[in-house]
């Protein structure tokens, strides 16, 4: 997550390197969804299931939509918009962590 954030924060025009990194992050997020649901079903912790799964699924939507939106603008503002999308991922990760820790 941090790596993608750093890349986007350089505020360049979007290139294939950034998109490649985002693709990897997205795959990791899908893996996180699967692992998260498996762990949720096997835990006896008092985790709020609907919220937890909601965050897991929501985190999958951010990067594709953000990339789609950012690519339509080939300027630094496009990269900035993508940086916003990348910024959301660590926030969601923190919330997931909080939900799990309750």
């Amino acid at each position, binding site marked *: 997550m941090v790596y993608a954030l750093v890349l986007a924060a350089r505020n360049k025009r979007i290139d294939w390197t950034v998109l490649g990194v985002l693709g990897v992050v997205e795959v990791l997020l899908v893996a996180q969804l699967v692992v998260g649901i498996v762990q949720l079903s096997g835990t006896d912790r008092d985790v709020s299931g*609907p919220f937890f799964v*909601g965050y897991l699924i*929501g985190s999958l939507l*951010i990067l594709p939509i*953000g990339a789609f939106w950012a690519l339509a603008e080939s300027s630094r*503002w496009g990269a*900035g*918009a993508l940086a916003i*999308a990348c910024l*959301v991922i660590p926030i969601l990760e923190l919330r997931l962590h909080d939900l799990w820790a309750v």
Partner: protein
Amino acid sequence: MTDPAATKHGPGRILIAVYGVFALAATARAGVQIATKFDEAPIAYLLSAVAAVIYCAATFALAKATPVSRKVATAAIAIELIGVIAIGAFSYAVPDDFPDATVWSHFGQGYGFVPLLLPVLGLLWLRRTR
């Protein structure tokens, strides 16, 4: 600038991205709250849903960037500003009526006060691209 499409370019791109995030977050939050525990705090959750609808309307209207959609965006963002100030003030004045947080309670404190800043920036941006 008289071109309405200017609304969605340049810094507007980032503004709309932030609106999109809040539209998604508010919709998801309201959806889960209403689906799982509506009885606990129906007023707060209905307000969450209203906020979600307004964020979605503002996002799509800004992104569409036509003369008509700019009017819709202005209205939605004005309601958003009034909402965040009203709900923010009420949540401090009568906290008992807000047992669970909405996006707008305490002036959006749970979201780094971004909900308070966003409508101001949105209205300024609409003014600038008029």
